[in-house]
């Protein structure tokens, strides 16, 4: 079932190891990737900015996951065994129960593998740099979705319910 998540884009920014320079084309490409791949998403915003997606949630972990297979380990998760996970199932598979499960975990955040994502908004941290803010705003304009301001502690569960809740916090 479709559940709303955060997906960070700042990690796509680095053109070279250690480089902080972020060409806007890289961000645009990241948005293109989002449109088709099975993504690693999180219940909290990670990085300076990213997109809010809605998609078919396969499994939720209480640990770090990656959208792509790691070149060294061949894995998409930081741990070999997924002992703590939650699979959407039957009547329990609603957005509220998914985020409730996340809130109950001991980790600071949870991540999920999500397929067939739709971008519903672009998010940007309140303390993001001027450049990151305008990149986020530009991306929102390109994708024709609202830009939403978030803090480090914002959880995606905040927007459980209708999309109108997102628009009420729209920046641009």
């Amino acid at each position, binding site marked *: 079932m479709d559940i709303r998540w955060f997906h960070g884009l700042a990690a796509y920014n680095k053109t070279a190891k250690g480089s902080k*320079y*972020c060409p*806007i084309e890289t961000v645009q490409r990241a948005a293109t990737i989002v449109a088709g791949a099975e993504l690693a998403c999180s219940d909290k915003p990670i990085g300076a900015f990213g997109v809010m997606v809605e998609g078919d949630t396969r499994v939720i972990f209480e640990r770090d996951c990656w959208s792509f297979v790691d070149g060294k380990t061949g894995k998409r998760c930081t741990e070999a065994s997924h002992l703590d996970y939650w699979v959407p199932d039957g009547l329990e598979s609603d957005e509220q129960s998914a985020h409730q499960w996340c809130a109950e975990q001991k980790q600071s955040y949870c991540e999920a593998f999500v397929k067939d994502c739709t971008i519903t908004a672009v998010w940007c941290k309140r303390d993001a*740099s*001027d*450049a*990151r*803010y*305008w*990149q986020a*705003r*530009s991306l929102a*304009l*390109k994708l*024709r979705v609202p830009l939403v301001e978030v803090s480090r502690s914002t959880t995606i569960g905040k927007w459980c319910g209708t999309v109108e809740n997102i628009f009420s916090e729209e920046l*641009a």
Partner: protein
Amino acid sequence: MILNLTQHQATAEQLAAGVIDLPEDKRTALIDALTVTSLPDRESIEARCDYIAELACQNGLGGDDEDDPHPKMAMIGGAPWLMSALEQALTERGITPLYAFSVRESTERTMPDGTVQKINVFRHAGFVGI
């Protein structure tokens, strides 16, 4: 169509020359992007200019969101350190940046008390292309 991407609304002469202002909500967003209140770095300047150029494409002048007319030219102006990056961002989208050129016309009028009042009027005289 010459899209106005300056902070100021087009003058009557500029409108007559084919300049079109952005709709109010887009113009507010434009002014926001052109207003820099702290020392910017290059990345910030480029990000703002990319936004402005995107705004020129999604200008809200079409019948709906998917039908905005693509401007062939845009009138720009503002902080010199912003213009080079803006020219580039517009050119990358097939939009020719133009600068308005005006001439100053001065007239003098003798007031009833004998003083002379000098009035400067800036008249639009064309565009300078890059």
